[in-house]
């Protein structure tokens, strides 16, 4: 252990896989995912919790991983954008983004996908204005947001319908 870079051992489940690692105490979680695990789909835009590029799910909740230290992931479940595709195909949320042209440069897209994944798990339909409020923690400079809102609205409706059908059965 270097004097400049004190390190800590952690065990974390990332996208279903148990990972044990030694992380510098001052390494934030987004850097850990990118640099130590090669999960470069999680992006970094401001490192002060404003832009939302680094949003991932920690124990099912959408969090900005630049505001967490890697050591705080110890014992937690992490889900990143790399986990979303199903059988090498886009999942319904990703497909909705593609259908609605909800991405341009794509740098913010993982942040919106993970935020929307957490939203969809609530199983609620939301109005477009409610969706706009829910996703206001992730910035996009390309799209003007409208198509992102449409894609998420479509996905929330599909998810709510599927939940209702399950309950009915």
């Amino acid at each position, binding site marked *: 252990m270097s*004097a400049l870079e004190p390190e800590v051992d952690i065990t974390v489940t990332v996208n279903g896989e148990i990972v044990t690692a030694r992380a510098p105490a001052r*390494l934030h979680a987004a850097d850990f995912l990118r640099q130590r695990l090669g999960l470069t789909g999680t992006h970094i835009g401001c490192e*002060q919790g404003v832009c939302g590029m680094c949003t991932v799910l920690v124990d099912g909740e959408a969090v900005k991983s630049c505001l967490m230290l890697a050591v705080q992931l110890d014992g937690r479940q992490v889900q990143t954008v790399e986990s979303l595709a199903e059988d090498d195909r886009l999942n319904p949320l990703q497909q909705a983004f593609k259908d609605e042209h909800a991405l341009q440069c794509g740098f913010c897209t993982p942040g919106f996908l993970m935020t929307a994944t957490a939203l969809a798990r609530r199983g609620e339909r939301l109005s477009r204005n409610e969706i706009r409020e829910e996703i206001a923690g992730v910035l996009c400079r390309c799209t003007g947001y409208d198509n992102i809102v449409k894609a998420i609205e479509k996905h929330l409706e599909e998810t709510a319908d599927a939940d209702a059908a399950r309950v009915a059965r």
Partner: protein
Amino acid sequence: MTHILERPTGPLGGSHDDRTDAIGSNVPRKEDDRLLRGDGRFTDDVEPPHVLHMAVGRCPFPHAQILGIDTSAALEVEGVKHILIGSDVRAATEPLTVLRPVPGAPDLHYYALAQDVATYEGQPVVSVVATSRHIAEDALELIDIDYEPLPHVVDVIAALEPDAPVIHPHVLGSNLLVSNRDESGDPEARMAEADVVVAGRFRINRVTGLPMETRGIVVEWRPGARELTVHTSTQVPHLVRKQLAESLRLDEGEIRAVASDVGGGFGLKLGIYPEDVLACLHAMALRRPVKWTEDRSEHFRATTHAREAVHDFRIGATADGRMTAMTNVYATDLGGWNSSFGSAQLSSVVFNGPYKIEDGSVERRVIVTNKTPIGAYRGYGQPEVNFAYERLVDQLARRLDMDPLELRAMNMVRPTDMPWRNPSGAVYDSGDYELCLRMAGDAVGYDEHRKAVRGPRPDGRYVGIGLSSFVERTGYASSRFLARRGSQFGAHESVTLRANRSGGVDLYTGVSTMGQSSETAFAQVTSSVLGIAYDKVSVHAGDTAASPLNTGAFASRTMIAAAGALKDAATQLRDKTLRLAAWRLETEVGTLEVAGDRVQHRSDPDRYVLLSEVFSMAILGQGLPPDEEPGLEATAHFEPPDAAYSFGTAAAVVSVDPNTGDFDVERFVLVHDCGTVVNPKVVDGQVRGALVQGLGAALSEELRYDADSGQLVNGTMMDYFAPSAADVPPIELLHTEVPSPVTTFGVRGVGEVGTIPPGAAVANAICDALADFGVELSTLPITPESVWKALREQRA
């Protein structure tokens, strides 16, 4: 009236023979799957083995002499590998070059690290490479730099006053870098004769494009191979290669620049920055890969800013509303140095907007200040000047007691006038400006609003409608135009198409992918012309080692120029494909067509040969007709004969609380024409995204400098307010489609248009709402506070 998303699909313009339904249709984007799955490859995603990390120490003062730098303590830190200071850089490099100089401007030698004097807060002074970014930043803390702060000036007007400190005294006698003037007719005589002259001073705020991905670079140097590989987040890989070669004293052939996925550019990633030269120098000294990723706090100080300008504008008119003259003198900020694209130049080109002015003059004065350098940003001067002339047109309407829409309509250039040369020499090619204006008025119920009794709504708010009409130059008016201005790039675009044995076509382009959907649009055009299935076109973008030498993605020029190159290359490929297939099928070329994955008889589709077979014939050189050479690829270059001018009108409906100045943009409509549309969804996305940037710049974004300290006071995302999803007003897009006669397929540029009209449209709406209070706004951004202050001044 056609809504952009409900427009008919199918072939548009041009010869039907060259089309499948790919041009004009919403094909799925080539770029999407990788970006949706986290498989994009942005610069910071590139991680070579044994990579080292760079951190840059920056001047904390707006203007300071550097008396000494002591790096000894930093060099002792475990993990620190290399440190560069100004004298090292001066010995090893040439100054950074400028791609788009201000015409007639002297050279301000700019090295990657400050020499004796730093001229803005954030200018690089020292750089450190270490085994981790953390350690490199720790080491920066230990470097002792002895600064002598110098007098500074941050305001563009104050910078011209006689007592202002001269920022580049070795080159300039004042802070005026240069002034340029364009004129036609005799505007002063027309002003003297005019029944009415309106004049105003309009201030446009300093903003930044704020791409979500900051800049970054990863450098690998193999001295034995003389090969410098540079992964970088840029819009112009081939121009980065040129500039790096010039600064590093290398041959271009020794440099490979790669930009695969770029997380937004908007003009900020045009050409090299100091950090690019520094990372290369470190990597070459250490023979180890070096990486630098700009952090957001650096980005706010080290990546170019935009827009800041003061426009003095006059319009002369007859009593019945005919505009007879326009003059515009403006001061535009350069910042502390001349960046690759310097200060915005297009204010001059379209200063008269859509109005038919024969007697006009425009003078640009480029001013040096102690602030972060200005560079290109979406719109490049056109949003600034639009705010000035469109605000003033509304003031003229009030002076003449005329309807602002009718005043605009009667002065617009008419379709029958075009091509028409404006006072600065721009040739407006075609279009129906008045139609867009009237469509915008109809969409927001303009006539009803004008007829309604003025006064507050039941909720106490006053409602106004504001218009902003514009003409936008897209692309460049030829390489001759660029040569006269000293620009270091061409007006053309270049592309290579190469058949492969799987029956597909590989498309190689130096245009990097930054959200503009060029991979998709290029594949659409190739598919349309060649007849091959869209899915069988593989696009390889942004690598100088695997693309023809091109210009790059900026100035809304990519499609304007690339469409011609793509058409030419795809035609060459198609013609040879048909000749080989005719030989193979023992028939005449004229009886065949390329269709998806095969070449087939037009009248008997069951008689066909697969493209994979035809392409293999050419690639193997086996089974060819006796007069054919082996191989199947084509490189084409295309320069359009002139720039294409997009146009349109925005209409904003805004309600205002006259007590607090609080306002809501309740509707925002843009009617726009970008000529032939290649992909409607992509066009919609470009226009909408740019509009939101324009609304941000008009209503919430401003980089503020404190005059006393010269410091940037809001250089973080916490206090620079780019719009979030919750901040965007309802936007409706309408559309006309007049093909441009000067481009292949009739396309006009589309990437920047949305940034132009929001400021004037919203300001005009607020001033319309508050007309009874006498409010005239002349400064951006417009905030509830600024509206409240304007109300208070009128009441006082």
